[in-house]
């Protein structure tokens, strides 16, 4: 059962609002966690599987959001068309940027993606004529899916969860395919991957573009759900949060990214009351996880459970999934 985990997750997502009807926490926080899951799962393809860090991923989230916001409010485009345009824009941007940027490694790559993110944010703030500047753009119409206008928390929960499950499913498929193995090979040993006939530049570019598409998709949904966008949602801090989600759950594990995204969303919600402590906790958590469990919470815990299980049963541990 390749997708057993996926079906279990889908069932849980569907059951939650039924178990807790009219629960603000479930539908609203759930929706916001869902968007984060899409972002984290996409970024994990790049960071976890292909092994390329990006400290500017919020830029692509922003491209999707602003494409939807601008095209629907200023030009009256139908929302699905605007979403498609956002995907196209983010994909092209990522593609054009990938070649020069992904030649770099380690700290240089970190710097380049970071610079890219900062530049994108500056443009969002400064190109007032298009983006509304620091005040943002309001009055974004609801998402219109072939005549169905998505309105209300519960409907949004449904839409975002469906999108999230799609993202998780795509990611699981991709990783467990020739394309995904090529990506992981790039991470494992770039030299060997090349020698096995993998065009590593192309593989990295693919990962970069796909993760940008995931982010832009989340961005479009976010813009419609909030009916408002401003640059604050796409700044460096957001890029760092995305990285946190991926590493918190565990690199190179789709469900790790899912768990990381949900955990960080809940944590932020939990800390809303202690707003001033949020940074402190966020920073401490990031350090602690990386120092004591660098493989991430989800991956680390599943490994521990597996070890415990095999110790109890007394058999050899099965291969890591």
């Amino acid at each position, binding site marked *: 059962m390749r997708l057993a985990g996926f079906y279990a997750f889908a069932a849980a997502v569907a059951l939650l609002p039924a178990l807790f009807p009219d629960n603000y926490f479930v539908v609203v926080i759930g929706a916001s966690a869902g968007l984060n899951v899409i972002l984290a799962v996409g970024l994990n393809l790049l960071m976890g599987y292909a092994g390329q860090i990006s400290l500017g991923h919020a830029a692509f989230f922003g491209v999707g959001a602003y494409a939807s916001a601008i095209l629907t409010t200023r030009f009256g485009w139908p929302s699905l068309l605007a979403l498609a345009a956002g995907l196209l824009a983010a994909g092209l941007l990522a593609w054009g940027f990938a070649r*020069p940027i992904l030649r770099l490694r380690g700290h240089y790559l970190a710097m380049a993606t*970071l*610079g*890219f993110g900062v530049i994108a944010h500056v443009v969002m703030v400064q190109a007032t004529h298009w983006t509304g500047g620091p005040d943002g753009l309001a009055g974004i119409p609801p998402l219109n899916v072939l005549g169905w206008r998505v309105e209300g928390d519960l409907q949004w929960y449904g839409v975002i969860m469906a999108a999230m499950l799609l993202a998780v499913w795509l990611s699981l498929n991709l990783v467990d395919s020739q394309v995904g193995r090529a990506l992981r090979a790039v991470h494992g040993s770039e030299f060997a991957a090349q020698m096995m006939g993998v065009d590593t530049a192309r593989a990295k570019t693919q990962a970069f573009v796909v993760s940008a598409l995931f982010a832009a998709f989340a961005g479009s949904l976010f813009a419609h759900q909030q009916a408002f966008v401003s640059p604050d949602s796409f700044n460096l801090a957001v890029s760092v949060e995305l990285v946190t989600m991926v590493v918190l759950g565990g690199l190179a594990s789709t469900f790790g990214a899912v768990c990381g995204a949900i955990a960080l969303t809940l944590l932020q919600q939990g800390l809303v009351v202690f707003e001033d402590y949020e940074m*402190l906790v966020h*920073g401490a958590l990031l350090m602690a996880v*990386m120092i004591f469990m660098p493989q991430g919470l989800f991956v680390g815990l599943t490994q521990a459970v597996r070890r415990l299980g095999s110790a109890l049963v007394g058999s050899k541990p099965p291969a890591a999934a």
Partner: protein
Amino acid sequence: MPEQLFQFLVTGITIGSLYALVGLGFALIYNASDVVNFAQGEFVMLGAMTAIALLNAGLPLLVAAVIATLLTVGVGLLLERFAIEPAAGASVVTTIIITIGAAIFLRGVALLLWGKDFHSLKPFSGDAPIQIGGATVLPQSLWVLGVTVVLVALVRAFFNRTLLGKALLACAFNRTAAQAVGINVKVMLRLAYGLSAGLGALAGILIAPITFSSYEAGVMLGLKGFSAAIVGGIGNPMGAVAGGVLLGVLEALGAGLVSSGYKDAIAFLFVLMVLFFEPTGLFGHKASERV
């Protein structure tokens, strides 16, 4: 127009000096430990904020500056001891994230201590502008320039003239070999963190009278310092200094001639161009990879 250009140049060199100091800190830590310390900017912020707080508590400027610097050095040492040392040998991504975590943590501490307000420091020797050529120069800019020159010269002398400095360089060059000839690598690491924290704090104290300071003030300064180090060729201390000044001047020219809103974008665009066309930095040295 020439006067205006001169003015931009003066502004650029002032701000560039700070980038140089922060970049120098990056280079020191990178050399000693292969870690890019994303909390470097927070050292700057801590230096400035602590000095301001101490000054407000009634201490004289010099005393406040010294105590603030020493406290920040302490923070640098703690960072090394409790965040970097336990993760020795971790991957680049892991160490990047640890130091980002440290940066957020320190920002969180500053937020709790000093709130979200902006704070400023009184200029060291008044704020009556001085006319030099056609440009107006604030006395504080001269302080920045002067102290930076002195600090850079001291760091250079430290590496070239003292045994301790040479030991630190040896560590950067080859840690195993350094260990083999009896250099205590652990102590060298702490030295590097302490030194860069001190440099950062001094940069913060110098700049506080010109730009306001807040718990977030270190973010951009840190990134620009990192940029300076990259432009100069990561791990090349004097390259970082040159990169910082270059970046500052470019940014000032961009702000003056293009648009001040885009100045950060211009600076980072420049960094990206350097990375694309000269990935080892303008003053770095190249190495071919082995299979």
